[in-house]
C-alpha cells in the first residue's frame, strides 16, 4: 500500500491547497498570486519568489455571486467570484487574469469595482498567431515582469528567470514521464489521479512538487495496474477544478488514459526553451499553446488527434461547464474532426452541484457504444 500513500499525497495537496498556501505565506513572509495558470507565464512569478496558484471555482452555492453575474455567464468565473465573496481567497495578494474570454473580461470589470484596490492584473493574451502578435505578447510579458518586480520589491535577473525555467521544465518533463506510463495497456494511474497530480502542481511550489513527482515515479512502476477491460478515453476541455467530474466518467466504465485539458497535458506538454532571452522564450511557449483563445482550429485538432493515436484512445469526452463559449465553439470543430477520423466523442456539459446520475447515464451509454 506504500504506493497508494504516494499517489494519495497529491490528492491531499490539492484538497488542502487553500490552507497550505496561507501557511506558506505566513512562514515565508512572501506573497501568493492567483492565476489561470495555463496561460499566465508562471516562471516570472516564481522567479520573484512568489507563489503562483491556480484559481478554482467550485462553490457551495452561487448566492453571493448572483448579485453581480447572471446565470448565463460562465459558471467557472461565477464560482470563483462566489469564493472571493465568501472570503475563501483572502490569502491571495494578487490576481493575474489572462484576457481569454468575455466572462473573464466581465468578471474583471466587476471585480475592479468591488475590490477597490489594485490587486488584479489583466494580462493580454493574443487572439491570433502572427509574428507581430508574438512580438507584442513578449512586450506584454516584459511589462508584466516589471509589474511583478515592483509588486514583490525584487529585481528579477536573467539568472533568476533561467533558474525558474529550469525548475518549471523539470516539472514538465516529470509530468510527461508520468503520462507516458498511461500509454501502457494497463496504465498504473487513473485519470482522476493524474488530474490530482497536475492540479497539485498548479498549487504548490514547483521545486517541492518536483521532489514528490520523483518519488512517485520511482514507486509507481510497482503499482497494481488498472484493469484493461475499461474503455480507453481521452478528456478534452478547459479547467477541471473538481476531480469528481472525471470520477463520474471512470465510475461509468471508462478509463481516462490521456487528456487535452487546461489542467492536464496542455499545462506542461511543451517546454520553455532556454535561450539568451528568457522573456522571449517564455512568451513564445505560452503563445504557442494550442487553445481556443487564438490558435487556429487545426492546431487543436493536430494536438488532439496526436494524443488519441499515441495513447490508443477509443473515445473522447468533452467535459464542459455550462456557458463556456470558447470550448463549446471548439467542440463543433473538434467533434467533427474526430468523426472524420472515426473517433466517437461525447459532449458532457456539467454544472455544480454535479448531477452525477444523469452524467453517469450518458457516459455509460457512450462507453457501451464503444464496445
Amino acid at each position: 500500500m506504500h504506493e497508494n500513500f504516494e499517489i494519495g499525497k497529491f490528492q491531499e495537496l490539492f484538497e488542502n491547497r487553500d490552507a497550505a498556501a496561507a501557511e506558506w505565506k505566513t512562514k515565508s513572509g512572501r506573497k501568493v498570486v492567483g492565476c489561470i495558470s495555463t496561460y499566465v507565464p508562471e516562471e516570472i512569478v516564481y522567479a520573484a519568489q512568489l507563489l503562483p496558484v491556480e484559481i478554482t471555482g467550485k462553490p457551495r452555492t452561487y448566492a453571493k455571486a448572483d448579485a453581480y453575474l447572471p446565470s448565463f455567464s460562465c459558471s467557472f468565473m461565477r464560482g470563483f467570484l462566489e469564493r472571493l465573496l465568501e472570503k475563501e481567497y483572502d490569502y491571495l495578494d494578487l490576481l493575474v487574469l489572462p484576457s481569454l474570454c468575455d466572462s473573464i473580461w466581465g468578471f474583471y470589470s466587476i471585480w475592479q469595482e468591488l475590490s477597490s484596490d489594485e490587486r488584479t492584473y489583466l494580462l493580454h493574451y493574443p487572439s491570433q498567431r502572427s509574428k507581430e502578435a508574438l512580438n507584442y505578447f513578449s512586450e506584454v510579458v516584459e511589462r508584466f515582469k516589471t509589474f511583478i518586480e515592483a509588486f514583490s520589491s525584487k529585481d528579477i535577473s536573467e539568472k533568476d528567470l533561467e533558474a525558474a525555467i529550469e525548475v518549471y521544465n523539470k516539472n514538465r518533463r516529470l509530468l510527461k514521464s508520468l503520462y507516458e506510463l498511461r500509454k501502457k495497456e494497463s496504465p498504473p494511474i487513473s485519470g482522476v489521479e493524474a488530474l490530482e497530480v497536475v492540479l497539485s502542481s498548479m498549487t504548490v511550489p514547483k521545486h517541492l512538487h518536483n521532489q514528490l513527482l520523483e518519488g512517485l515515479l520511482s514507486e509507481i512502476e510497482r503499482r497494481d495496474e488498472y484493469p484493461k477491460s475499461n474503455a480507453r478515453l481521452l478528456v478534452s476541455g478547459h479547467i477541471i477544478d473538481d476531480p469528481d467530474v472525471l470520477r463520474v466518467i471512470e465510475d461509468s466504465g471508462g478509463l481516462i488514459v490521456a487528456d487535452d485539458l487546461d489542467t492536464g497535458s496542455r499545462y506542461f506538454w511543451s517546454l520553455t526553451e532556454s535561450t539568451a532571452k528568457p522573456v522571449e522564450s517564455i512568451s513564445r511557449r505560452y503563445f504557442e499553446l494550442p487553445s481556443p483563445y487564438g490558435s487556429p482550429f487545426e492546431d487543436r485538432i493536430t494536438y488532439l488527434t496526436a494524443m488519441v493515436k499515441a495513447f490508443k484512445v477509443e473515445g473522447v469526452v468533452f467535459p464542459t461547464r455550462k456557458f463556456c463559449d470558447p470550448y463549446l465553439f471548439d467542440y463543433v470543430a473538434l467533434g467533427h474532426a474526430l468523426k472524420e477520423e472515426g473517433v466517437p466523442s461525447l459532449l458532457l456539459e456539467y454544472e455544480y452541484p454535479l448531477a452525477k446520475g444523469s452524467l453517469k447515464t450518458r457516459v455509460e451509454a457512450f462507453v457501451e457504444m464503444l464496445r
Partner: protein
Amino acid sequence: MSGSTRRTLSCAREVTDLVVAHYMSAVQAHSEGRQVAWSTAVAPSAEILYTMGIQPLFPENYACVSTVMKAAHDMINVSEAHDISRDLCSYTRCVMGSVLGCESPLGGMETPDVLVSTKNVCITYLKWWQLMANALKRPLYVIDCPRITEEIEDYQIKYVAEQLRNLGVELEKITGKNLDEAKLKEAVQLSDKAAELWRKAYEYRRTKPCPMGVTDSSAAMFPIVASSGTTEAVQYYERLLSEVSGRVKAGVGVIEDERFRLLLSGIPFWHHLKLFNYLEDKYKAVFVHELYTATWGITSLDPAKPFESLAFKMLFNPTNMPQTWLEEWVVKIVKDFDVDGMVLLSSRSCKATSILNVAVQKFLREKHGIPSVILEADHTDERAYSDAQAKAKLDIFMEILGAK
C-alpha cells in the same frame, strides 16, 4: 393606449432599400471581378476594404435582417442540428444556418473570398469567424485587439495599426492591387465625416420632444455599420441630419405628448421591435439614446494617420473599455439627455453585451441613483422571449418612474 401617432423618419424608411442594395453590391462586386469580405460589424477594416475595392458584408447585420424577416428560426435550427450549442451567440447560430445550407433571405450572403475578424467586442467574434472560415474554406485574418484597463496607450495603438497595415499587405495578395494610401486617407476622412454627422443627429435627441426614437435610429445606423468610408454614407447622414434638425426646428417629436425619456443598453430584440412601440403608446416613453447605436459615432478619425486612427477606433469601443469608463459615459448621457431611466436588454447568448447588466444596474442605483430595468431574452432567438413577461416588467418599471 393607442391613438398616438408615431412619426417615422423618412430616412429610416429608406433603409430597407439600402439593405437590399448592400447585399446586391457583393454580387455586383464578384461580377466585376472584385472580391467580397465578411467582416465583424464594429469594423476594423471597412475603410481599408472599400479602399481596395473589396465589398464588405457584415454577418451580424445579416442575422439582424434575417430575424426582422422572420427567417432566423429555421436557420438557427440548422446550426443546432450541427452541434452549435443553443447557449452560443444567436447571431452565430442564425448565420451559420445559412452557411450550412439553410434557405435564407436574399438567397444568402454572397460567398466571401476572405474573412476579417477581431476580438474588440467578444471572443465569439473570433470563434464564429473561425467556424465560417472553416466551413467556407476561405482565409481568415484576425486583428488582435487588447482590452483597455485604464487609458488607451500608444503601444496598443501601434500594435493594432501594425496589424491593419499587414492586413492591407495580405489583401493586396488577394486583389493583386496595391493599397493606395491616399485613397485610404480619403476613406478615413469620409468615415470620420459620417461618424460626425451621426453624432450630430444624435445630439438633437437631447431636444424635447425627442426627434428620433429607437426604431428610427436602429434602422438609421445601417449605413454607418455597412458603408463607413464611402460617400454614400456621408450623403445619407447629411439627409438624416437635415431631417432631424428640421423636426427640432418645427418642434416635432417622435410621438406627441412625450412624458418619459429612456436610455437603452444592449442589442434590440430584433424579433419584437414592437416592444418599443408599447412604451411609446402606453406610457409616452421615448428612447432618446442607445449605447448600441451610438457606438458607431463616438470616435473621431485623423485622415493624416489612417492606420493609427482606425486602430484607435477599434480599441475605443464601449465593450472594449473599462467599467469605469462605461459608467462615466452612462452618467453623462443621463445628465445630457435628461434621461428618466434605463432599460438594459440582456441576451442570454450574448455575454459581451449582457453579463455586466446585473452589476451595472446595482452600481447605477447605488452610486448614482439611476433607476433601470433588465429584460432577459435574446436578440435573435425568439424562443427565449416572452412578450407578456417583458411587458409586465416594463409596466412595473414605468410605475416606479411615476407613470399612472
